[in-house]
């Protein structure tokens, strides 16, 4: 037991920041695991540069990991940290502006050399010149303490220094009363083949913990009680991991082999990595020569009766457009995952954005409707992946899933579903003739549709008697033969659109959250903005003002009641991390003058900023200003 007084907090936001080589992502991941194991609710925001190792000690090389944990449910990684761990001057400089005055800073003084200060334009050390007076600063020589703790190890100085992130983790774990056993087990597995490195890391970790306990610099310790959560088995999960698990689960439920064609791209690559390790579950991953080949391989596999999936980010989605159009024309199931990032062009590879919505819905030649859906949190990626497979296999259509960098890398606790509770995804392949010809003989017509869903039969090679040809040229209704007939093309164009429209029959109505029932302002979002918007709505309601919130997971088609929902409010605010793409669709489709609120900063919306927007809108509505 610790000898120091324990103080209880209801929530804490910590940001670990250092050089790209300092291991901040790992430190954050480990702190997250320790926190999850304690039963806090949590949300994380990794934030790292696109360069693998930008020059050491520079501002572009700063990598950070923010974690928000609480004794109640958590919606976002937190707008502003309470605690900043700054491993070098660059990390301090890059992050200080986000830290409210009165917050706590832990700095690694060893790195505050003249040279390092100069690299980021500090004339004098901010630790010494009084410029940090408004914050609680703990000056700790993290590097030298680590090296000293490892004095007896036969390692080079460099190797010893590398363990300083474990020292920092140990210290923070002490500060917030986190157990170390999970991290110790993790290190044992990670360094099983390098016993000395393992011992060094364990020693540094414990030295950090003991430093907190013994040094007078830290007078109190904190604890955050577990959050009340529904009973069940939990794990933490990132969006990309949840997406991979959702796909595997869907394939398992549908009884289909899963074939992923993919070309590496940030922030989608982890889906390829994860699925490539799941062969045992009937998963085949093909790393293609480019994104066009990747989606082609997936479509070829779908033609053969597998679940064809391709994963990419915005630039890759652009390359896949023509093949997705072929999927629309041949009416085959196909799942396309777009883990969005900042654009245009290469844009901001490691930062988040929602700017591919219009590309997903409209970014192909011709009238080329597809289903588009979007997860609203990291763990929702699991459910959305299953929903994508449901739609693709039921309606024989490409489905585009719009996740983004924030969801992909962010993590949260996830109540692991039991397999029996997962949706059933029964798939029926055509097995014999489905029609008769003029003479009454049984025939197979590959474009004879299911009257309810308008889906065509999925007749896979190897099925005797159903031999047929499909392709991208316009097909005659029912028979699927090449047809250039004007009326037929008009009909087929409308049938393809009608099929997508009918998906709305099987998706839930949009639910509106308005606890008071008195709101006149609705805030409507889609995708990863769910957390910040919900947090903003809470802030607004806490001031006694009513606001309604709704969130779209289905973007093409929209839920059937969306128009009614929009028209029921005086004002509709649509926050998006683009320049108003959903707003454009809503205005076009429903003639409702929604108010777009946008930012493309590569980061999720701060909840406080959104709350201000909502406050203003509510005030104007109350004054009758339209």
């Amino acid at each position, binding site marked *: 037991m610790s000898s120091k007084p324990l103080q209880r907090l209801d929530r804490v936001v910590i940001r670990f920041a250092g050089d790209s080589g300092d291991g901040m992502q790992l430190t954050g991941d480990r702190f997250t695991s320790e926190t999850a194991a304690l039963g806090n609710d949590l949300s994380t925001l990794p934030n790292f540069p696109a360069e693998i190792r930008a020059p050491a000690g520079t501002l572009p090389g700063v990598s950070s990991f923010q974690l928000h944990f609480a004794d109640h449910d958590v919606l976002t990684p937190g707008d502003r940290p309470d605690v900043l761990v700054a491993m070098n001057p660059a990390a301090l400089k890059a992050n200080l502006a986000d830290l409210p005055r009165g917050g706590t800073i832990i700095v690694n003084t060893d790195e505050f050399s003249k040279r390092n200060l100069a690299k980021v334009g500090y004339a004098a050390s901010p630790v010494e010149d009084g410029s940090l007076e408004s914050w609680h600063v703990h000056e700790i020589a993290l590097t030298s303490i680590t090296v000293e703790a490892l004095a007896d190890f036969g390692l080079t100085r460099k190797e010893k220094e590398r363990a300083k992130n474990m020292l920092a983790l140990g210290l923070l774990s002490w500060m917030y009363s986190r157990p170390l056993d999970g991290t110790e087990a993790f290190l044992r597995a990670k360094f099983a083949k390098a016993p000395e490195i393992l011992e060094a890391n364990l020693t540094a970790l414990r030295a950090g913990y003991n430093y907190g306990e013994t040094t007078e610099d830290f007078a109190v310790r904190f604890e955050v009680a577990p959050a009340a959560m529904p009973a069940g088995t939990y*794990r933490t999960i990132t969006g990309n991991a949840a997406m991979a698990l959702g796909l595997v689960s869907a394939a*398992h439920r549908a009884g289909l082999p899963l074939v992923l064609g993919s070309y590496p791209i940030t922030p989608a690559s982890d889906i390829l990595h994860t699925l490539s390790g799941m062969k045992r579950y009937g998963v085949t991953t093909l790393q293609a*020569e480019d994104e066009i080949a990747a989606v082609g391989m997936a479509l*070829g596999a779908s033609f053969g009766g597998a679940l064809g999936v391709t994963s990419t980010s915005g630039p890759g989605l652009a390359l896949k457009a023509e093949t997705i159009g072929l999927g629309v024309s041949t009416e085959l199931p196909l799942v396309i995952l777009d883990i969005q990032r900042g654009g245009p062009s290469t844009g901001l590879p490691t930062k988040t954005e929602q700017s591919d919505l219009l590309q997903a819905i409209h970014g192909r030649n011709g009238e080329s409707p597809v289903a588009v859906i979007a997860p609203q949190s990291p763990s929702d990626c699991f459910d959305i992946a299953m929903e994508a497979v449901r739609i693709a296999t039921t309606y024989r259509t490409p489905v585009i899933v719009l996740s983004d960098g924030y969801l992909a890398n962010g993590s949260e606790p996830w109540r*692991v579903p039991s397999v029996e509770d997962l949706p059933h995804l029964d798939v029926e392949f055509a097995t014999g003739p489905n029609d008769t010809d003029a003479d009454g003989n049984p025939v197979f017509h590959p474009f004879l549709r299911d009257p309810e869903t308008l889906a065509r039969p999925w007749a896979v*090679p190897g099925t005797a008697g159903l031999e047929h040809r499909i392709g991208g040229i316009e097909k005659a209704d029912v028979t699927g033969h090449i047809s250039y007939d004007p009326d037929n093309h008009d009909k087929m164009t409308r049938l393809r659109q009608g099929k997508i429209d009918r998906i709305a029959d099987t998706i839930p109505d949009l639910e509106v959250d308005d606890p008071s029932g008195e709101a006149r302002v609705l805030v409507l979002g889609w995708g990863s903005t769910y957390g910040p918007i919900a947090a903003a709505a809470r802030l607004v309601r806490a001031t006694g003002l009513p606001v309604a919130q709704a969130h779209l997971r289905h973007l093409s088609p929209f839920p059937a009641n969306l128009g009614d929902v929009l028209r029921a409010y005086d004002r509709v605010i649509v926050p998006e991390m683009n320049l108003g793409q959903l707003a454009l669709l809503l205005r076009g489709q429903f003639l409702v003058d929604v108010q777009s609120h946008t930012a493309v900063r590569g980061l999720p919306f701060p909840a406080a900023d959104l709350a201000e927007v909502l406050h203003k809108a509510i005030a104007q509505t109350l004054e009758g200003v339209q």
Partner: protein
Amino acid sequence: MTTGTDLGMPSPGGTHGVPRLPEDAPKQTKKDFTSDQEVRWCPGCGDYAVLAAVQGFLPDLGLKRENIVFVSGIGCSSRFPYYLDTYGMHSIHGRAPAIATGLATSREDLSVWVITGDGDALSIGGNHLIHAMRRNVNLTILLFNNKIYGLTKGQYSPTSEVGSVTKSTPVGSVDHPFNPVSLALGAEASFVARTMDSDRAHLTTVLQAAAEHRGTALVEIYQNCPIFNDGAFQLLKDRDEKEARVLTLAHGEPVRAGNDHVVVRAPDGSLAVVPEADAEPGSVLVHDATDEDPSLAFALSRLDDGSMTHIPMGVFRSVTRPTYDDQVRAQVDAARSTGGGTADDEDLAALLRGGDTWTVA
């Protein structure tokens, strides 16, 4: 990096794993492979002859018709699948090798064929073509080379000679052409052959060898387009000319050009066509299609200087190496057998839980 596990791959024939007709089933005929669609190539197009040869040859494979799939790109030649009563996909320009790779890898029980043109395969689809060949996916690729873009009405193609006057090059093209056989050998295709639309017998033999090969078989078919590039291969068809110009390759046989010339190997390794009388004893090249080293096959493909004086026809290369699709499937199978069989609900539940869980009561 090394291969993780020895997959102990067999190297059976190209159609191994594809269901065959029962021994006592009536033999298929050309008619069984002819679809009800009206063929819409121009009169005299070389594609007709290739279609007839393929329809005539497919019954010899003895495979169940429903297990044969033709995937094509876009171009006149790529209409081919519509005319065959098998499964087929007329896909998009240049992408057939990628689509076929996904299909062949996920379905061992299919015989997968790719139909492509010189523009489809070598311009827009060049990347997919070379990667299919380097991977050695079990596909038979028929590349219809008419040295022109037919479907878009006569622009020059990546196989058109320098100086070709076409719709888009009124004063002659300036870009250097690909030699598809050289390209395929450079990509280390395990089977590379060349044949001619009008030579039904040769075409059929080459198709046979290609179908028997496990791995990517690239067959370049010289195909006449009477509308936009008529007579492109006339020198190789003309009774008086062809004898000297066509070098018929036969494995294990000396390579001859006409009845009085032979191909010799100079001491520096290069190849030359010389009068037989001048050839040093023992210097005549004996064709070895199974040579692991593609250099000689490549040298053969370079014998011609572009003027169609020495055009080898037949199988340049036919070597055995593990196929991509067999290995991909073997890895999945290995993961299943070492993991305790096909994953069931229990296994999925364990996967979902992962390593690090906690319980809320």
